[in-house]
Protein backbone atom coordinates (compact mmCIF):
# COMPACT_ATOMS: atom_id res chain seq x y z
CA UNK A 1 0.00 0.00 0.00
CA UNK A 2 1.18 3.57 -0.57
CA UNK A 3 2.91 5.26 2.34
CA UNK A 4 1.27 8.64 1.82
CA UNK A 5 -1.70 9.40 4.11
CA UNK A 6 -5.11 8.67 2.55
CA UNK A 7 -6.94 11.76 1.27
CA UNK A 8 -9.68 12.97 3.62
CA UNK A 9 -13.18 12.32 2.40
CA UNK A 10 -14.30 15.92 2.95
CA UNK A 11 -12.14 17.83 0.48
CA UNK A 12 -9.85 15.24 -1.02
CA UNK A 13 -6.71 17.07 -1.95
CA UNK A 14 -4.97 15.53 -4.90
CA UNK A 15 -1.39 14.41 -4.31
CA UNK A 16 -0.37 15.85 -7.68
CA UNK A 17 -2.83 18.65 -8.53
CA UNK A 18 -4.19 18.83 -12.08
CA UNK A 19 -2.77 15.37 -12.62
CA UNK A 20 -4.64 13.37 -15.24
CA UNK A 21 -5.63 9.78 -14.57
CA UNK A 22 -6.11 7.42 -17.48
CA UNK A 23 -9.00 4.97 -17.49
CA UNK A 24 -9.65 2.14 -19.91
CA UNK A 25 -13.18 0.90 -20.58
CA UNK A 26 -14.20 -2.72 -21.16
CA UNK A 27 -14.21 -2.15 -24.91
CA UNK A 28 -10.69 -0.69 -25.00
CA UNK A 29 -11.39 3.06 -25.08
CA UNK A 30 -9.14 5.29 -23.00
CA UNK A 31 -10.32 8.35 -21.11
CA UNK A 32 -8.48 10.97 -19.13
CA UNK A 33 -9.89 12.41 -15.95
CA UNK A 34 -8.47 15.00 -13.56
CA UNK A 35 -7.38 13.47 -10.28
CA UNK A 36 -9.75 15.75 -8.32
CA UNK A 37 -12.68 14.40 -10.35
CA UNK A 38 -11.50 10.79 -10.08
CA UNK A 39 -11.53 11.07 -6.30
CA UNK A 40 -15.34 11.21 -6.46
CA UNK A 41 -15.06 7.46 -6.93
CA UNK A 42 -13.97 5.53 -3.85
CA UNK A 43 -12.83 2.67 -6.07
CA UNK A 44 -10.57 4.95 -8.11
CA UNK A 45 -9.37 6.71 -4.95
CA UNK A 46 -7.97 3.39 -3.72
CA UNK A 47 -6.42 2.54 -7.05
CA UNK A 48 -4.77 5.94 -7.46
CA UNK A 49 -3.06 5.63 -4.11
CA UNK A 50 -1.33 2.47 -5.19
CA UNK A 51 -0.08 3.62 -8.56
CA UNK A 52 1.16 7.09 -9.45
CA UNK A 53 2.94 5.87 -12.53
CA UNK A 54 0.19 6.70 -15.03
CA UNK A 55 -0.73 3.39 -16.65
CA UNK A 56 -4.41 3.36 -17.60
CA UNK A 57 -6.64 1.83 -14.93
CA UNK A 58 -8.65 -0.99 -16.53
CA UNK A 59 -12.40 -0.94 -15.77
CA UNK A 60 -13.73 -4.19 -17.19
CA UNK A 61 -17.27 -3.53 -15.91
CA UNK A 62 -17.85 -0.24 -17.71
CA UNK A 63 -18.24 0.33 -21.45
CA UNK A 64 -16.74 3.33 -23.22
CA UNK A 65 -20.14 4.87 -23.86
CA UNK A 66 -20.97 4.90 -20.13
CA UNK A 67 -17.47 5.69 -18.90
CA UNK A 68 -17.46 8.86 -21.00
CA UNK A 69 -20.60 10.06 -19.20
CA UNK A 70 -19.29 9.03 -15.78
CA UNK A 71 -16.13 11.06 -16.41
CA UNK A 72 -18.35 13.98 -17.41
CA UNK A 73 -20.37 13.63 -14.18
CA UNK A 74 -17.37 13.42 -11.88
CA UNK A 75 -15.65 16.34 -13.59
CA UNK A 76 -18.75 18.50 -13.20
CA UNK A 77 -19.07 17.61 -9.53
CA UNK A 78 -15.40 18.40 -8.91
CA UNK A 79 -15.73 21.85 -10.49
CA UNK A 80 -15.26 24.63 -7.92
CA UNK A 81 -17.76 27.46 -7.56
CA UNK A 82 -20.88 25.76 -8.91
CA UNK A 83 -23.95 26.74 -6.87
CA UNK A 84 -26.36 24.09 -5.60
CA UNK A 85 -29.24 25.11 -7.81
CA UNK A 86 -27.26 24.96 -11.07
CA UNK A 87 -25.74 21.63 -10.09
CA UNK A 88 -29.21 20.23 -9.35
CA UNK A 89 -30.44 21.41 -12.75
CA UNK A 90 -27.39 19.90 -14.44
CA UNK A 91 -27.97 16.60 -12.61
CA UNK A 92 -31.59 16.55 -13.74
CA UNK A 93 -30.49 16.95 -17.35
CA UNK A 94 -27.81 14.29 -16.89
CA UNK A 95 -30.36 11.63 -15.97
CA UNK A 96 -32.89 12.76 -18.54
CA UNK A 97 -31.94 9.76 -20.67
CA UNK A 98 -33.28 6.37 -21.65
CA UNK A 99 -34.19 3.97 -18.88
CA UNK A 100 -31.53 1.47 -19.94
CA UNK A 101 -28.88 4.17 -19.72
CA UNK A 102 -29.94 5.10 -16.19
CA UNK A 103 -29.54 1.43 -15.24
CA UNK A 104 -26.05 1.43 -16.75
CA UNK A 105 -25.22 4.53 -14.70
CA UNK A 106 -26.40 2.73 -11.57
CA UNK A 107 -24.18 -0.27 -12.22
CA UNK A 108 -21.21 1.99 -12.95
CA UNK A 109 -21.85 4.16 -9.89
CA UNK A 110 -22.11 1.03 -7.76
CA UNK A 111 -18.94 -0.55 -9.16
CA UNK A 112 -16.96 2.69 -8.97
CA UNK A 113 -18.53 3.65 -5.61
CA UNK A 114 -19.62 7.16 -6.58
CA UNK A 115 -22.17 8.10 -3.87
CA UNK A 116 -23.49 11.24 -5.61
CA UNK A 117 -24.17 9.41 -8.87
CA UNK A 118 -25.65 6.38 -7.10
CA UNK A 119 -27.94 8.64 -5.10
CA UNK A 120 -29.09 10.56 -8.17
CA UNK A 121 -29.78 7.50 -10.31
CA UNK A 122 -31.45 5.42 -7.58
CA UNK A 123 -33.84 8.30 -6.91
CA UNK A 124 -34.76 8.27 -10.59
CA UNK A 125 -35.52 4.55 -10.59
CA UNK A 126 -37.41 4.81 -7.29
CA UNK A 127 -39.61 7.48 -8.87
CA UNK A 128 -40.11 5.25 -11.91
CA UNK A 129 -41.36 2.27 -9.95
CA UNK A 130 -43.16 3.75 -6.95
CA UNK A 131 -46.65 3.53 -8.45
CA UNK A 132 -46.29 0.18 -10.21
CA UNK A 133 -48.21 -3.00 -9.51
CA UNK A 134 -46.29 -6.13 -8.47
CA UNK A 135 -46.83 -7.55 -11.94
CA UNK A 136 -45.35 -4.44 -13.56
CA UNK A 137 -42.38 -4.68 -11.19
CA UNK A 138 -41.77 -8.28 -12.21
CA UNK A 139 -41.74 -7.28 -15.88
CA UNK A 140 -39.49 -4.30 -15.12
CA UNK A 141 -36.86 -6.33 -13.28
CA UNK A 142 -37.51 -9.55 -15.18
CA UNK A 143 -38.30 -11.48 -12.01
CA UNK A 144 -39.99 -14.84 -11.88
CA UNK A 145 -42.35 -14.97 -8.96
CA UNK A 146 -42.22 -18.27 -7.11
CA UNK A 147 -45.33 -17.54 -5.11
CA UNK A 148 -48.09 -20.04 -5.71
CA UNK A 149 -51.41 -18.35 -6.55
CA UNK A 150 -52.62 -19.14 -3.01
CA UNK A 151 -49.49 -17.65 -1.39
CA UNK A 152 -49.76 -14.53 -3.48
CA UNK A 153 -53.44 -14.20 -2.56
CA UNK A 154 -52.51 -14.44 1.13
CA UNK A 155 -49.91 -11.69 0.91
CA UNK A 156 -52.35 -9.52 -1.00
CA UNK A 157 -55.04 -10.05 1.61
CA UNK A 158 -52.70 -9.23 4.53
CA UNK A 159 -51.79 -5.99 2.87
CA UNK A 160 -54.94 -5.21 0.92
CA UNK A 161 -54.93 -1.57 1.97
CA UNK A 162 -51.70 -1.01 0.01
CA UNK A 163 -53.52 -1.94 -3.18
CA UNK A 164 -56.38 0.47 -2.76
Amino acid at each position, binding site marked *: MSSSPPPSSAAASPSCPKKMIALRSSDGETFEIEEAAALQSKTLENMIDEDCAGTPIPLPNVTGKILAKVVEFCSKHAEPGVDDESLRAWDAEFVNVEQATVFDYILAANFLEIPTLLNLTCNVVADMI*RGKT*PDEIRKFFNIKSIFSPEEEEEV*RRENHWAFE
Partner: protein
Amino acid sequence: MKRLLAETSRSLGFAVAQSFTEDILIEILSRLPVKSLVRFKCVSKRWRSLISEPHFAKLHLQRLILENITPSQKIIKSNPLQTIDYEALDNDEVNNHVVVESHDLGKDEPWGLAGSCNGLVSLAVNDGFLVYNPTTKESRKLPGSDLVAEHEFFHGFGYSSTTDDYKVVHGAFSKANDGSKECVLEIFSLRSGSWRRVPSKDVPKLSGPGIYLNGSVHWIVNHGNGSRIEQAIIPFGLATETFEEAIPIPKVEGIVYEGLGIHRGRLFAYDVTWRLCFEAWIMNEYGKGESWTRLFSVPTDGLPACQFYTIPIAFTQSKKIVFQIDVSEMILFNPEDGTYKNYPIEEDDNVESAIYVETLVSPHVGHEP
Protein backbone atom coordinates in the same frame (compact mmCIF):
# COMPACT_ATOMS: atom_id res chain seq x y z
CA MET B 1 -36.25 -0.40 -37.91
CA LYS B 2 -36.78 2.33 -35.32
CA ARG B 3 -39.35 0.23 -33.47
CA LEU B 4 -37.04 -2.77 -33.41
CA LEU B 5 -34.26 -0.61 -31.98
CA ALA B 6 -36.59 0.84 -29.36
CA GLU B 7 -37.75 -2.62 -28.32
CA THR B 8 -34.21 -3.93 -28.18
CA SER B 9 -33.08 -1.10 -25.94
CA ARG B 10 -36.09 -1.62 -23.70
CA SER B 11 -35.35 -5.31 -23.30
CA LEU B 12 -31.67 -4.49 -22.80
CA GLY B 13 -32.86 -2.28 -19.97
CA PHE B 14 -34.65 -5.23 -18.44
CA ALA B 15 -31.57 -7.40 -18.78
CA VAL B 16 -29.48 -4.77 -17.03
CA ALA B 17 -32.01 -4.33 -14.24
CA GLN B 18 -31.89 -8.06 -13.74
CA SER B 19 -28.20 -7.80 -12.92
CA PHE B 20 -28.85 -5.41 -10.04
CA THR B 21 -27.21 -6.78 -6.94
CA GLU B 22 -29.04 -6.91 -3.64
CA ASP B 23 -27.11 -3.79 -2.54
CA ILE B 24 -28.44 -1.83 -5.48
CA LEU B 25 -31.93 -3.16 -4.95
CA ILE B 26 -31.83 -2.02 -1.33
CA GLU B 27 -30.53 1.42 -2.42
CA ILE B 28 -33.56 1.80 -4.66
CA LEU B 29 -36.18 0.25 -2.39
CA SER B 30 -35.13 2.25 0.66
CA ARG B 31 -36.23 5.39 -1.18
CA LEU B 32 -39.81 4.22 -1.70
CA PRO B 33 -42.80 5.13 0.44
CA VAL B 34 -44.16 2.42 2.74
CA LYS B 35 -47.33 1.91 0.72
CA SER B 36 -45.29 0.94 -2.37
CA LEU B 37 -42.99 -1.30 -0.33
CA VAL B 38 -45.82 -3.23 1.25
CA ARG B 39 -47.37 -3.75 -2.18
CA PHE B 40 -44.01 -4.97 -3.51
CA LYS B 41 -43.93 -7.75 -0.92
CA CYS B 42 -46.08 -9.52 -3.49
CA VAL B 43 -43.40 -9.40 -6.17
CA SER B 44 -41.44 -12.45 -5.06
CA LYS B 45 -40.38 -14.36 -1.96
CA ARG B 46 -36.98 -12.68 -2.09
CA TRP B 47 -38.53 -9.21 -2.16
CA ARG B 48 -40.98 -10.15 0.57
CA SER B 49 -38.25 -11.27 2.97
CA LEU B 50 -36.01 -8.31 2.07
CA ILE B 51 -38.75 -5.76 2.75
CA SER B 52 -39.84 -7.53 5.96
CA GLU B 53 -36.37 -7.51 7.51
CA PRO B 54 -36.00 -5.24 10.57
CA HIS B 55 -32.64 -4.13 9.23
CA PHE B 56 -34.28 -2.84 6.07
CA ALA B 57 -36.90 -0.98 8.11
CA LYS B 58 -34.09 0.74 9.99
CA LEU B 59 -32.28 1.70 6.79
CA HIS B 60 -35.52 3.07 5.37
CA LEU B 61 -36.11 5.11 8.54
CA GLN B 62 -32.57 6.48 8.54
CA ARG B 63 -32.98 7.68 5.00
CA LEU B 64 -36.31 9.36 5.87
CA ILE B 65 -34.70 11.21 8.78
CA LEU B 66 -31.59 12.12 6.81
CA GLU B 67 -33.47 13.53 3.88
CA ASN B 68 -36.12 15.15 6.09
CA ILE B 69 -38.90 13.91 3.88
CA THR B 70 -41.93 15.68 5.31
CA PRO B 71 -44.46 14.47 2.72
CA SER B 72 -44.45 11.10 4.46
CA GLN B 73 -45.69 12.68 7.67
CA LYS B 74 -49.30 12.46 8.79
CA ILE B 75 -51.45 13.19 11.80
CA ILE B 76 -53.05 10.59 14.03
CA LYS B 77 -56.01 11.51 16.20
CA SER B 78 -58.08 9.69 18.79
CA ASN B 79 -61.80 9.52 19.54
CA PRO B 80 -62.35 7.96 17.04
CA LEU B 81 -58.97 6.73 15.82
CA GLN B 82 -58.20 8.32 12.47
CA THR B 83 -55.15 9.33 10.47
CA ILE B 84 -55.04 12.50 8.42
CA ASP B 85 -53.06 13.23 5.29
CA TYR B 86 -52.90 16.87 6.24
CA GLU B 87 -51.07 17.99 3.08
CA ALA B 88 -53.90 16.65 0.94
CA LEU B 89 -56.28 19.36 2.13
CA ASP B 90 -53.83 21.89 0.75
CA ASN B 91 -54.56 20.72 -2.79
CA ASP B 92 -57.61 22.07 -4.53
CA GLU B 93 -59.12 18.73 -5.46
CA VAL B 94 -60.32 17.62 -2.08
CA ASN B 95 -61.18 13.96 -1.86
CA ASN B 96 -62.41 13.09 1.60
CA HIS B 97 -61.31 9.48 1.24
CA VAL B 98 -57.73 10.51 0.78
CA VAL B 99 -57.62 13.06 3.57
CA VAL B 100 -58.96 11.08 6.53
CA GLU B 101 -58.65 7.34 7.14
CA SER B 102 -60.31 5.40 9.95
CA HIS B 103 -58.53 2.74 11.98
CA ASP B 104 -60.50 0.06 13.74
CA LEU B 105 -58.83 -1.50 16.77
CA GLY B 106 -62.03 -3.04 18.07
CA LYS B 107 -62.11 -3.32 21.83
CA ASP B 108 -58.70 -1.64 21.99
CA GLU B 109 -60.05 1.69 20.79
CA PRO B 110 -57.74 4.16 22.57
CA TRP B 111 -58.92 6.94 24.82
CA GLY B 112 -55.72 8.90 24.36
CA LEU B 113 -52.36 9.17 22.62
CA ALA B 114 -49.26 8.47 24.67
CA GLY B 115 -46.45 9.43 22.30
CA SER B 116 -45.13 9.10 18.77
CA CYS B 117 -41.67 8.11 17.56
CA ASN B 118 -40.18 6.81 14.30
CA GLY B 119 -43.55 5.84 12.88
CA LEU B 120 -44.79 4.02 15.98
CA VAL B 121 -47.46 5.53 18.21
CA SER B 122 -48.24 4.55 21.76
CA LEU B 123 -51.97 4.46 22.41
CA ALA B 124 -53.57 4.62 25.85
CA VAL B 125 -56.27 1.94 25.96
CA ASN B 126 -58.64 0.81 28.68
CA ASP B 127 -56.38 -1.77 30.25
CA GLY B 128 -52.99 -0.26 29.49
CA PHE B 129 -51.12 0.55 26.31
CA LEU B 130 -50.95 -0.53 22.71
CA VAL B 131 -48.07 0.27 20.35
CA TYR B 132 -49.25 0.78 16.79
CA ASN B 133 -47.77 1.51 13.39
CA PRO B 134 -50.59 3.34 11.58
CA THR B 135 -48.90 2.82 8.20
CA THR B 136 -48.42 -0.95 8.24
CA LYS B 137 -51.31 -1.44 10.69
CA GLU B 138 -49.16 -3.69 12.88
CA SER B 139 -50.20 -3.49 16.51
CA ARG B 140 -48.87 -4.86 19.77
CA LYS B 141 -50.90 -4.82 22.95
CA LEU B 142 -48.67 -4.46 25.96
CA PRO B 143 -49.24 -6.65 29.01
CA GLY B 144 -51.02 -4.86 31.85
CA SER B 145 -49.10 -3.49 34.78
CA ASP B 146 -50.27 -3.08 38.36
CA LEU B 147 -49.92 0.67 38.23
CA VAL B 148 -53.31 2.26 38.11
CA ALA B 149 -53.35 5.99 37.48
CA GLU B 150 -56.17 7.47 39.50
CA HIS B 151 -56.23 11.06 38.36
CA GLU B 152 -52.87 12.62 37.82
CA PHE B 153 -50.69 10.79 35.38
CA PHE B 154 -48.22 11.31 32.58
CA HIS B 155 -47.05 9.06 29.78
CA GLY B 156 -44.57 9.11 26.91
CA PHE B 157 -42.92 6.97 24.28
CA GLY B 158 -39.63 7.04 22.43
CA TYR B 159 -36.48 5.42 21.13
CA SER B 160 -33.27 4.75 23.01
CA SER B 161 -30.33 4.32 20.65
CA THR B 162 -27.97 2.95 23.31
CA THR B 163 -30.05 -0.21 23.56
CA ASP B 164 -31.79 0.08 20.17
CA ASP B 165 -35.08 -0.16 22.02
CA TYR B 166 -38.43 1.62 22.21
CA LYS B 167 -39.81 2.44 25.65
CA VAL B 168 -43.15 3.46 27.10
CA VAL B 169 -42.94 5.66 30.19
CA HIS B 170 -45.88 5.79 32.56
CA GLY B 171 -46.15 7.70 35.82
CA ALA B 172 -48.89 8.29 38.35
CA PHE B 173 -49.14 10.70 41.25
CA SER B 174 -50.91 9.89 44.47
CA LYS B 175 -51.17 11.45 47.90
CA ALA B 176 -48.94 9.89 50.50
CA ASN B 177 -50.05 9.54 54.09
CA ASP B 178 -48.33 12.77 55.08
CA GLY B 179 -50.18 14.68 52.36
CA SER B 180 -47.21 15.00 50.03
CA LYS B 181 -47.35 13.94 46.40
CA GLU B 182 -45.84 10.59 45.61
CA CYS B 183 -45.02 9.34 42.17
CA VAL B 184 -44.76 5.82 40.89
CA LEU B 185 -42.86 5.52 37.64
CA GLU B 186 -42.72 2.49 35.38
CA ILE B 187 -41.12 1.74 32.04
CA PHE B 188 -41.96 -0.84 29.40
CA SER B 189 -39.18 -1.85 27.05
CA LEU B 190 -40.39 -3.33 23.77
CA ARG B 191 -37.33 -5.57 23.62
CA SER B 192 -37.69 -6.99 27.11
CA GLY B 193 -41.46 -7.31 26.87
CA SER B 194 -42.07 -6.37 30.50
CA TRP B 195 -42.78 -3.47 32.86
CA ARG B 196 -40.22 -2.29 35.37
CA ARG B 197 -40.59 0.15 38.25
CA VAL B 198 -37.88 2.80 38.29
CA PRO B 199 -36.76 5.08 41.14
CA SER B 200 -38.94 8.17 41.26
CA LYS B 201 -37.87 10.65 43.86
CA ASP B 202 -38.64 14.31 43.33
CA VAL B 203 -40.50 13.80 40.12
CA PRO B 204 -41.56 17.16 38.72
CA LYS B 205 -45.28 17.76 38.39
CA LEU B 206 -45.84 16.53 34.86
CA SER B 207 -49.13 15.90 33.20
CA GLY B 208 -50.41 14.13 30.10
CA PRO B 209 -48.46 13.00 27.05
CA GLY B 210 -44.82 13.91 26.57
CA ILE B 211 -43.12 14.80 23.29
CA TYR B 212 -40.24 12.67 22.03
CA LEU B 213 -37.06 14.14 20.55
CA ASN B 214 -33.39 13.13 20.57
CA GLY B 215 -33.67 10.19 22.92
CA SER B 216 -35.77 11.97 25.57
CA VAL B 217 -39.44 12.61 26.26
CA HIS B 218 -40.32 16.21 27.13
CA TRP B 219 -42.96 17.98 29.22
CA ILE B 220 -43.54 21.56 30.31
CA VAL B 221 -43.54 22.13 34.06
CA ASN B 222 -44.94 25.14 35.83
CA HIS B 223 -43.81 26.61 39.11
CA GLY B 224 -45.89 29.23 40.82
CA ASN B 225 -48.90 30.69 39.05
CA GLY B 226 -50.52 33.81 37.69
CA SER B 227 -48.03 36.51 36.79
CA ARG B 228 -45.24 34.82 38.69
CA ILE B 229 -45.31 31.61 36.74
CA GLU B 230 -41.98 30.02 35.95
CA GLN B 231 -41.91 27.52 33.16
CA ALA B 232 -39.31 25.07 31.92
CA ILE B 233 -39.06 21.96 29.79
CA ILE B 234 -38.15 18.78 31.61
CA PRO B 235 -36.66 15.94 29.57
CA PHE B 236 -36.81 12.32 30.64
CA GLY B 237 -33.82 10.48 29.17
CA LEU B 238 -34.81 7.08 27.82
CA ALA B 239 -31.28 5.72 28.09
CA THR B 240 -30.56 6.91 31.64
CA GLU B 241 -34.23 6.50 32.65
CA THR B 242 -33.99 9.63 34.76
CA PHE B 243 -35.19 13.20 34.57
CA GLU B 244 -32.49 15.43 33.18
CA GLU B 245 -31.55 19.06 33.48
CA ALA B 246 -34.40 21.43 32.71
CA ILE B 247 -34.28 23.26 29.39
CA PRO B 248 -35.21 26.93 29.78
CA ILE B 249 -37.99 28.39 27.59
CA PRO B 250 -37.70 32.06 26.62
CA LYS B 251 -39.57 34.36 28.94
CA VAL B 252 -41.58 36.50 26.55
CA GLU B 253 -43.77 39.29 27.88
CA GLY B 254 -47.27 38.02 28.40
CA ILE B 255 -46.72 34.49 27.14
CA VAL B 256 -47.74 31.47 29.16
CA TYR B 257 -46.83 28.27 27.35
CA GLU B 258 -49.53 25.67 26.99
CA GLY B 259 -47.73 22.76 25.36
CA LEU B 260 -44.97 21.38 23.13
CA GLY B 261 -44.72 20.15 19.57
CA ILE B 262 -42.18 19.06 16.98
CA HIS B 263 -41.42 20.79 13.69
CA ARG B 264 -38.66 19.60 11.34
CA GLY B 265 -36.83 17.79 14.09
CA ARG B 266 -36.97 20.72 16.53
CA LEU B 267 -39.00 21.29 19.68
CA PHE B 268 -41.41 24.22 19.84
CA ALA B 269 -43.59 25.60 22.63
CA TYR B 270 -46.96 27.25 22.01
CA ASP B 271 -48.93 29.86 23.88
CA VAL B 272 -52.33 29.81 25.54
CA THR B 273 -54.97 31.60 23.51
CA TRP B 274 -56.10 34.30 25.92
CA ARG B 275 -54.16 37.07 24.24
CA LEU B 276 -54.65 38.97 20.99
CA CYS B 277 -51.86 37.04 19.34
CA PHE B 278 -51.26 33.31 19.42
CA GLU B 279 -47.55 32.55 19.31
CA ALA B 280 -45.15 29.66 19.23
CA TRP B 281 -41.40 29.65 19.80
CA ILE B 282 -39.01 27.06 18.43
CA MET B 283 -35.67 25.82 19.78
CA ASN B 284 -33.36 25.72 16.78
CA GLU B 285 -30.48 23.99 18.52
CA TYR B 286 -31.43 21.38 21.07
CA GLY B 287 -30.64 22.41 24.63
CA LYS B 288 -29.32 25.85 23.65
CA GLY B 289 -31.43 28.47 25.40
CA GLU B 290 -30.23 31.26 23.12
CA SER B 291 -31.34 29.43 19.96
CA TRP B 292 -35.09 29.98 20.52
CA THR B 293 -36.82 32.06 17.84
CA ARG B 294 -40.43 32.94 17.20
CA LEU B 295 -42.01 30.33 14.96
CA PHE B 296 -45.25 32.18 14.24
CA SER B 297 -47.57 34.83 15.60
CA VAL B 298 -51.22 34.68 14.54
CA PRO B 299 -54.04 37.07 15.52
CA THR B 300 -56.47 35.07 17.66
CA ASP B 301 -59.55 36.71 16.22
CA GLY B 302 -58.72 35.07 12.90
CA LEU B 303 -59.05 31.61 14.42
CA PRO B 304 -62.26 29.78 15.30
CA ALA B 305 -63.35 30.63 18.81
CA CYS B 306 -62.02 28.20 21.32
CA GLN B 307 -62.87 27.56 24.95
CA PHE B 308 -59.69 25.97 26.17
CA TYR B 309 -56.80 25.81 23.81
CA THR B 310 -55.57 25.86 20.24
CA ILE B 311 -52.81 23.41 19.39
CA PRO B 312 -50.44 23.77 16.41
CA ILE B 313 -49.96 20.23 15.14
CA ALA B 314 -48.21 20.39 11.78
CA PHE B 315 -47.01 22.70 9.02
CA THR B 316 -47.51 22.07 5.31
CA GLN B 317 -44.92 22.55 2.58
CA SER B 318 -46.62 25.82 1.71
CA LYS B 319 -46.24 27.04 5.30
CA LYS B 320 -49.87 26.67 6.28
CA ILE B 321 -50.57 25.54 9.84
CA VAL B 322 -52.77 22.69 11.06
CA PHE B 323 -54.49 23.71 14.28
CA GLN B 324 -56.53 21.58 16.61
CA ILE B 325 -59.25 23.68 18.24
CA ASP B 326 -60.15 22.46 21.73
CA VAL B 327 -60.97 18.78 21.58
CA SER B 328 -63.19 18.71 18.56
CA GLU B 329 -62.04 20.57 15.49
CA MET B 330 -59.06 20.59 13.14
CA ILE B 331 -58.35 23.33 10.64
CA LEU B 332 -55.79 24.19 7.97
CA PHE B 333 -54.92 27.81 8.55
CA ASN B 334 -53.29 30.09 6.00
CA PRO B 335 -51.26 32.71 7.88
CA GLU B 336 -50.91 34.80 4.72
CA ASP B 337 -54.56 35.69 4.31
CA GLY B 338 -56.02 34.45 7.60
CA THR B 339 -58.41 31.98 5.94
CA TYR B 340 -58.89 28.40 6.98
CA LYS B 341 -60.51 25.12 5.93
CA ASN B 342 -61.88 22.38 8.15
CA TYR B 343 -60.62 18.81 8.07
CA PRO B 344 -63.48 16.32 7.73
CA ILE B 345 -62.69 14.45 10.94
CA GLU B 346 -65.07 12.62 13.19
CA GLU B 347 -64.97 13.65 16.80
CA ASP B 348 -66.60 12.72 20.08
CA ASP B 349 -65.32 15.80 21.83
CA ASN B 350 -62.18 14.22 23.23
CA VAL B 351 -59.73 14.47 20.38
CA GLU B 352 -55.99 14.15 21.02
CA SER B 353 -53.57 14.33 18.12
CA ALA B 354 -49.92 13.80 17.20
CA ILE B 355 -47.77 13.71 14.09
CA TYR B 356 -46.04 10.57 12.91
CA VAL B 357 -43.85 9.51 9.95
CA GLU B 358 -44.70 6.61 7.66
CA THR B 359 -42.16 3.87 8.32
CA LEU B 360 -41.85 0.10 8.32
CA VAL B 361 -40.76 -0.02 11.96
CA SER B 362 -42.51 -2.90 13.67
CA PRO B 363 -43.93 -2.72 17.22
CA HIS B 364 -42.82 -6.32 17.61
CA VAL B 365 -39.16 -5.30 17.80
CA GLY B 366 -37.31 -7.80 19.92
CA HIS B 367 -40.40 -9.88 20.28
CA GLU B 368 -41.28 -11.31 16.91
CA PRO B 369 -44.78 -12.82 17.20
